[in-house]
């Protein structure tokens, strides 16, 4: 029974992880840029939900609707203004660039929101759901469903919409896409915007479960990276599978080795995957 409960916890966590990783994986796959800012975007989204609820009484699930356009605009502008200039530069430079931007953003948040942990607590609480011995808090369940829904929506946008097909085309073959009349620079900016949107939208969901702190950005970033390697880089189904897998592994790892070893566990997993199955669990690359 306990293992079923742990498994359910892992799936709930994993749904949220999938949402964290989908945008990160998209940006990495299409732009070949590791966006170090991703973790801080998530935290910023969390603060947005916290203050919207505390000051204006907007439910965190609804604040996603506010976060989405704001973060898209932020990501679009950043890519247009700065990152597009460095897109062809070596890994070290693009990494340093997003690292520098992340230092600025996280320091800004530390300054504005202080280092105190903030916890978003719903009033009244949504209660718990008990299904044949497995107990799940309803807010977590909803957060997971919304996270999976968002990730699914991203998949639909990429596979069905015109702009989504253009993003996939740029990922597959930049030159050919440009020859077909795709404005590559614009697609880069849209892609980065979508990545920021996914991060900003998962912020409110995570804020329902975890305390918010300006210092937790790197932890989310690390998870996004591990998930990309687990599921295979640059595909939404990969991020989904990787996210769920990491959630379940972390839950059982917490039970067997103690939760303080979460980073060590996922790093070990990361190294093993990179050494033995670098294409990820799904074993194929590219958006499909």
């Amino acid at each position, binding site marked *: 029974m306990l293992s079923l409960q742990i498994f359910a916890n892992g799936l709930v966590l994993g749904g949220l992880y999938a949402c964290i990783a989908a945008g990160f994986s998209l940006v990495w796959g299409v732009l070949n840029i*590791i966006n170090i800012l991703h973790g801080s975007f998530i935290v910023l989204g969390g603060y947005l939900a916290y203050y919207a609820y505390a000051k204006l009484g907007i439910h965190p699930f609804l604040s996603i609707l506010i976060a989405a356009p704001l973060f898209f605009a932020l990501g679009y502008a950043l890519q247009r203004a700065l990152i597009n200039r460095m897109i062809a530069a070596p890994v070290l*430079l693009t990494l*340093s660039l997003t690292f520098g931007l992340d*230092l*600025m953003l996280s320091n800004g948040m530390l300054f504005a929101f202080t280092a105190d942990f903030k916890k978003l607590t719903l009033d009244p609480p949504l209660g718990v759901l008990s299904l044949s011995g497995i107990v799940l808090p309803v807010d977590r369940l909803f957060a997971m469903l919304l996270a999976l829904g968002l990730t699914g929506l991203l998949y639909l946008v990429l596979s069905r919409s015109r702009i989504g097909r253009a993003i996939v085309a740029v990922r597959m073959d930049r030159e050919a896409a440009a020859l077909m009349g795709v404005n*590559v620079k614009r697609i880069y900016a849209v892609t980065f915007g979508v990545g920021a949107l996914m991060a900003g939208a998962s912020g409110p969901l995570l804020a329902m479960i975890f305390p918010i702190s300006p210092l937790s950005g790197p932890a989310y970033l690390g998870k996004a990276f591990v998930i990309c390697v687990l599921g295979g880089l640059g595909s939404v189904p990969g991020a989904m599978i990787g996210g769920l897998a990491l959630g379940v592994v972390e839950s059982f790892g917490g039970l067997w080795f103690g939760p303080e070893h979460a980073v060590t566990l996922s790093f070990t997993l990361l190294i093993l995957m990179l050494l033995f199955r670098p294409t990820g669990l799904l074993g194929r690359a590219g958006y499909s």
Partner: protein
Amino acid sequence: MRSSALLAAALLALVALLPLSGDAYWLRLGTTMLMYGVLAMSWNFIGGMAGYPSFASAAFFGLGAYAGAVAQKFGVPMGLAWVCAGGAALAFAALLGLALLRLRGHYFAIASLVVAEVLRELVNSATDLTGGGMGLNLPVPHDATVASQAQFFFYSMLGLAAITFTAMLLTTHSKLGFGLRCIQQNEAAADMLGVNTTLYKVAAFMLSGAFAGAAGALYASWVHYIEPPDVFDVLYSIKAIVMVLLGGAGSVFGPLFGAAIFLSLEELVWRNYLQVHTGVLGLMIVLLVLFLPKGVFARAVPRTRKKP
């Protein structure tokens, strides 16, 4: 090579005069600058010469700090503890390198970035040995005054910087350095031509680890108290990279000049904007990457536009 060595010796002699000023502030700044120089030079082995974007400096630095501190806890004399720490970081880098150096680009960069986090977690949970989150106190020599200690650590750091520089100079002009530059330009071709790429990369990583680790151990003895978030700070990795980028990657004097420039900027920022200094540091990095990606000494290089 001879002219570089002579110039370095002159520089060394000049820096060694610093304690004559008798000012504790300048002595502290000088020691920090030398430590930054060692970090930058140690990164240069793997990052500048082999062109691998390593973010492992913080891991080596922290590991060295803890190895030195724990060795001293068990009664190893200070100087020997520093050597042990360098050796521990060297061995760790060898093992880590065998696994990580098969990766390239982003995968290598992020994997090396996570190592410091993992070590921090392990050190945090090994409370018996390392004191965990409470940190670890290092023995303070009883018979020394504050001023003489400051001088002692300044000269120790100067010695380490001299050793690191010598190692870097020798490597640059050796077969190893040549092989590493081949790997940087085209690893597959270097492999084809008979460069043992795995061996060379691991050797560069080990050199990088050993000196960063020794710097960590010296730092630990210098400040007498270490705790995991302090020595496993990811900023050590990023600072090492920024310093080399500032001074120009791959060159012999680049890391040292980069360290001097970086520390001057950092000190100005730290003094004037205590609350937002990491933000200003971030801004510096962004500006550096956007406008001076080849370092401050690169003059108006014609911009070669690679196809994205």
